[in-house]
């Protein structure tokens, strides 16, 4: 099941560039939360702080508190453990190109010490079913490589790979921006189904997509979170003029 995320006084830097400033935010469990804002506003940096990916850059720095399911991820947990609990899907699908579909999904499990084939088979099947890819690939699991799939299928394969290690949170950084409309619809339907089991945070430039899939939406601008509210409120009657100007296309 998904868990809530509580962010308090979060600041992030790349070198001297203060990219996130005093972010305070509570993301509810088992909901999809969308983060929107113009390029460079800090939304991708923010999600990378939620699984400690931000600190993989040597010049990056973070202060503040992030509680995931009550666990302080910067004080009480190792990055590897956090990244198991908080899965991530990127803009461009990145399957391991030489591995089979099966091995792509099982890769994270094997790294975590799973070796029993029956257990692996079950988890791979369950993960591919949860990512709505099973029916399309079940007959060629070990024959076809991940790279041979279409872009939309590759992205669902990456979602299956993220789900296989049983995360509580799924971060998605523009997961459909490189996909055609049909593949985008499949990803959106998938998000809709997955949010009953996982807490989903999705970064998107597509505001209609945010409106379609998320119950909550946050608007970022210049490293600050300007407004966080129900998606309905943000897209019909936002409280802040800057939010309204952005979503109506008056700047951005």
């Amino acid at each position, binding site marked *: 099941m998904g868990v809530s995320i509580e962010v308090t006084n979060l600041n992030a830097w790349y070198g001297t560039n203060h990219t996130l400033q005093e972010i305070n935010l509570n993301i509810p469990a088992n909901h999809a939360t969308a983060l929107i804002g113009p390029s460079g506003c800090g939304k991708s940096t923010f999600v990378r702080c939620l699984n400690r990916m931000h600190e993989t850059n040597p010049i990056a720095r973070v202060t503040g508190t992030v509680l995931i399911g009550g666990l302080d991820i910067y004080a009480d947990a190792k990055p590897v453990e956090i990244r198991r609990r908080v899965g991530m899907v990127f803009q461009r699908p990145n399957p391991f190109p030489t591995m089979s579909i099966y091995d792509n999904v099982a890769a994270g499990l094997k790294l975590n010490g799973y070796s029993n084939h029956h257990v692996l088979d079950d988890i791979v099947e369950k993960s591919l079913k949860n990512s709505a890819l099973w029916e399309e690939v079940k007959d060629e699991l070990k024959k076809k490589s991940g790279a041979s799939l279409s872009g939309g299928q590759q992205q669902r394969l990456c979602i299956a790979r993220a789900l296989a290690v049983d995360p509580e949170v799924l971060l998605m950084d523009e997961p459909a921006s490189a996909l055609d409309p049909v593949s985008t619809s499949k990803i959106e339907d998938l998000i809709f189904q997955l949010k009953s089991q996982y807490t989903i945070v999705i970064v998107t430039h597509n*505001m209609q997509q945010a409106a379609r899939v998320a119950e909550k939406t946050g608007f970022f601008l210049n490293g600050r979170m300007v407004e966080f509210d129900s998606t309905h409120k943000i897209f019909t009657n936002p409280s802040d003029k800057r939010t309204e100007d952005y979503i109506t296309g008056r700047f951005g």
Partner: protein
Amino acid sequence: MTRIRFQQSLEELKEQLLVMAGLAEQSIQRAIEAYRVRDLSICNLVSISEMAINRLEREIDQAALDLLAMEQPMAVDLRFILSVIKINADLERVGDAAKTISDRVRSMEQMAQADLPVDIPRMAELAAEMVRKSLQSFIEGDADLARSILTMDDAVDAMNRAAYKALTKVMEEQSHLAPQALNALMISRALERVADHATNIAEDVIFWVQGDDVRHHKSIKTAPDPHVMG
């Protein structure tokens, strides 16, 4: 500013609606004038305007639909387009009400003049003022002005109820005046509807400008939940 073409399209939509508003307002004023001076030539103008209003209604709906489909408007722009669609329908109904009044004026031509206990000119003045103010609130995006119109509707409703009571009595007690009384009753009813449409327009302006849904604000708290009604 980005989306310049979209913003221009919104301005064009507003201008189209203002043309429609001008025609509807002129139409109701002409119908009232036709009643006051019993002039059938004015009635002809009302009929011509009504046809133009009907044509504009379709054009405005089509333009609004195109913007919804092509531009995926958000927030204040989305509220504006929804309000335009609804105001458009209300203005078309104002045109219909003007036509109803002018049709009654035509039929009065065949009838003897009668002194009826109903102040149609006063009621017409109030309804026309509501239309004028509601359109002013739309032109200026003035939610405060729009809110001031909502209370005016009660006065027109009260006048219509009083007219109904008085004219029914005339029909009962002076049957030879029944045709004139019936005509006056239909005009009173048309004016009451014009005031209702002006109220709707004012409510839509408030929704567009402030995002507040103020419709049925008096009765909504005590209304039964439609989702649990058998």
